[in-house]
């Protein structure tokens, strides 16, 4: 009797193992099908990831071909090797179209109430003309937010990106107080967001789903970088305001133009916002000279009270 019960237990265990293995293979098959999809455009990154093939053997696939690989766990805290992501924003081209925000929201499955890109009408002094100033997270190289986090829920990665692990965040909001650029937003209530599809794991790289009581912000889209794709704000801007790229490749692109990063920032006298704070932002601005649009064009889609607020803060009297 004793023997019997033992053996059934063992059988049960075996069964469980087998079931687990099948599940693994099934999942692997899914990933592989995404991989084997021929894509002439995707480039090899040289970095290999191990995947389980449908017949149960481990295969190595180049990460550039992998379409379902936002890193999770420890890997997500380290960053994509040999990369250093930067952004250059051309203020001469911005007309407050806010398409970048729409793109960001649709890519991150955010409801309209959660805004990770903000738009300012800055005016440096009363004698100068105001200009539109879109602001993502600056991904500082000396990030004040990361310094103060009590649990390491927000962290700086080797690829220059500052991410939030909202499974770890305790919601103390200290990072929001520390960020001088007000780049962080808090999920005060339920984010009312499309849920993660079944079987997908949360990754700080996708920032999806947002969780009530935790902090969120622009994440520089490392999951897209892993796929060799540009973030949605870059591709959805109608005027090519955003240039994004890898500083280690000395190249940035806005989707249509690809230029040397060093030449762009040097020739166009790029600056980083409030450099004097010592935060060393990873986002550069090109000064609004030879503008494509008058700043008033930016008012066309706004409500009258919003225009009034902008005018008031920018000291515009007319």
């Amino acid at each position: 009797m004793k023997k019997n019960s033992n053996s059934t237990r063992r059988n049960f265990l075996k069964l469980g193992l087998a079931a687990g293995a099948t599940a693994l293979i099934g999942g692997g098959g899914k990933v592989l099908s995404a991989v084997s999809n021929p894509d002439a455009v995707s480039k090899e990154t040289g970095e290999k990831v191990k995947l389980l093939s449908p017949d149960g053997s481990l295969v190595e696939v180049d990460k550039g071909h992998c379409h379902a690989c936002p890193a999770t766990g420890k890997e997500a805290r380290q960053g994509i090797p040999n990369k250093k992501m930067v952004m250059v924003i051309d203020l001469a081209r911005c007309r407050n179209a806010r398409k970048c925000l729409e793109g960001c929201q649709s890519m991150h499955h955010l409801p309209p109430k959660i805004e990770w890109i903000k738009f300012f009408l800055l005016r440096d002094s009363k004698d100068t003309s105001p200009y539109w100033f879109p602001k993502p997270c600056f991904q500082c190289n000396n990030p004040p937010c990361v310094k103060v986090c009590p649990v390491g829920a927000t962290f700086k990665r080797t690829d220059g990106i500052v991410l939030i692990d909202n499974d770890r965040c305790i919601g103390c909001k200290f990072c929001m107080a520390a960020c001088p650029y007000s780049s962080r937003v808090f999920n005060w209530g339920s984010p009312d967001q499309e849920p993660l599809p079944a079987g997908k794991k949360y990754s700080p790289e996708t920032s999806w789903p947002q969780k009530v009581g935790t902090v969120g912000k622009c994440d520089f889209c490392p999951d897209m970088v892993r796929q060799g794709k540009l973030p949605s704000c870059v591709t959805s801007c109608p005027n090519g305001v955003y240039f994004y790229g890898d500083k280690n490749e000395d190249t940035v692109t806005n989707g249509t133009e690809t230029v040397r990063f060093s030449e762009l920032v040097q020739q166009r006298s790029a600056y980083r916002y409030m450099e004097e704070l010592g935060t060393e932002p990873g986002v550069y601005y090109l000064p609004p000279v030879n503008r494509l649009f008058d700043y008033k064009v930016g008012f066309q889609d706004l409500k009258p009270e919003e225009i009034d607020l902008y005018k008031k803060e920018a000291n515009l009297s007319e």
Partner: protein
Amino acid sequence: MEYNNKTYKNYEDFKPQLESIGRYGYFFITAMVMIIAWGIYALYTQLSKGQVVTGMRDYVIWGIYDANFIFFIGISYAGALISGILHLLRVEWRHPILRMAETITVVSTMIGPSYIFLSMGRLERVWHILVYGRIQSPIVWDVFAISTYLIGSFIFLYLACVRDLAFMRDHPVGVARWRNRIYKFLSANYQDTPKQRELLNQLIDLISIVIIPLAILVHSVLAWIFGMTLRPGWHSTIFAPYFVLAAIYSGTGVLIIVMFVFRKIYHLESYITKNHFTYLGILLMILGALYGYFTFSEYLTNWYGSVKWDMEVLYRLFDTSTYWWWFFFSAFIGVLLPIILIAMPRLRNIYTIVFAAMIAVTALWVKRYLIIIPTLETPLLPLHDVRPEFAGYSPSWVEWSLTAMGIAIWLLLFFLFSKFLPIVPVVRVNTADERDYFKLRKLAKERILRRMIRKTRKEKNVVAGILVLLFMSAALAGHAQDPLRSRLKLEFLNKSGTRILTGKLTSKKDDQTVPLEGMEVSFFIQGANNKVLLGKASTDEAGKANFTLPDKLDIRRNKEGKYSYSAAYAGSKEYQSSESSAAIMDVFMKITFSQKDSSKLINLFAVEINQKGDSVPIDGSTVIFYVPRTFSLLKIGEQAVKSGHADLDFPVTLPGDSAGNLPVIARFEDNDNYGNAEVNATMAWGKKLPPLVIIKRGLGDTNAPLWMVYTLIVLLSLVWFHFTYAIITIFRINYLGKKALKEKQA
């Protein structure tokens, strides 16, 4: 154990308040419990709905919870600093007020931190601080400091209670049995033997000394939470001493109020005299003046420097439409009125002193509000792109309810404690209980510092379940309409000899070009007489269908040496059919690299294949050179091919990988004859990417700088060594008492 007559007389005075709660007492307890119950409902609302029920929003991220937190930690100074200092200075009149002061400390240190928990978005993850805690964060400093402080003030209060506990144990008349058991347990067999007395006095002195720097540190750390940020009004070097001073000021005020209340309800006029009020009032006045000095110094510096953001905060404080009256109350009334009332002998009496204390305490709460809110309302970037409800702050009913709850718990705990032990120490010792202060030196020599071993606990992660509301996204498809036009564009790419046909299928919707996904595109080649089907492929999310041609085609080229390819989309109910074609010549390309003196060159060799299959050098077409990068191709130059050759300088300034490997692509683009044709090659002439230097210790890194770790360990060890010593000595007192009792019986 023997007690003197004075002790018995004292005890007679306190007996009534210990033995019954009284009608008013029950009324008071009921009222407090009702407020607390309401607070629990508010807490439930916040925990279930999230902080959306508070008045805090993205700009004003901290509100009155945090003001309350600073306020309660501030008033805890009453016991720690005032009683500590008075005790060490052997001030004679201190005895009747010591216990009140120490109780204020313990109760406030219990209530205060709970407001930090209320201010947290994910209360259930508070254990993350233990598991993932980063020493670099001032919040973690606070966790260490406040928990140590709470334990220290418990020990301090307890030590001062031991004699009274022993007395209560020895005189159990009229008090419930369970209470007698507690007295007996807590009195640690204190028999007032000479050795016990010496140990106890020694301990009280020791903890008085330890608690003073500890209290200063606690409030400094609290100030640093604000001071370490880059915000106007917070990022100030005097913030820590400013907070410490404000804390003693409010602590003294609360002590005066508490003295007054107990004097009234328990009729303690013979214990707490007018002198007590006068002495503490003068202390309050001095502290008020110092506090005013700090305030003036802080705002004068900001105003004189007139940095943009500092000025914006100042404008808010001095603007009558925003905070002027609050500011006026906290910085002018709250400083000047107590000074005037107490400084003038004519005005000075118990009531004015208590009134001054009340003004000071209220002003200091307002001050904490004014520290937090106006600064948060002044971000460095303007408040443009803000929904109106996000810009300002007004506390919601939940926040007010929980504030009331905190005050109610504070009052209730205080009241219950005063029913448990006499609120004024009753035991008066026959012999002088003042030990020589300098005996401590001898003590220090006897002590041997033992190494403290820190145990780190690892706790398993507990996965918290989270509810995410379903977000409706399915849009219903419209009714059947006429099929829309589709557009197919055939592109040809010769990639290092592999020929790929790409059909890009799009349609126009609302004047926007949208890709069609999942559609089948057929690819054909023109044979001698008819079209030959090459194969089929379906479109991806970008609307592209790719088909790779076989290496050899059994089809003859036309006169120009071209193949005619075409692609067709059959159409569906929604989209019309479409097709596209292209005539393309095959090419062969090769990249080599050469170095002449200092110039490094990319050499392209390119030929086209004519009708007969012979190679003919290309002449005149433009070839573009690229370097492939993560997202796109970086153009490095273009050249016209001359008799099959084109050269370009190698982009030696571009970074490659760690070995300098840089791939180069040469490409004919949208060429009339060749379509797209490209070839690539890699050469290690690029700039070498320096290896990544990972800094492991730093403020923003995983591990804290070593000096921080050492400082923390040293500070904590010092304090905890003394606490441990105190606890061990209490056990020793207990042992000595047992021994003494046995000897007596024998």
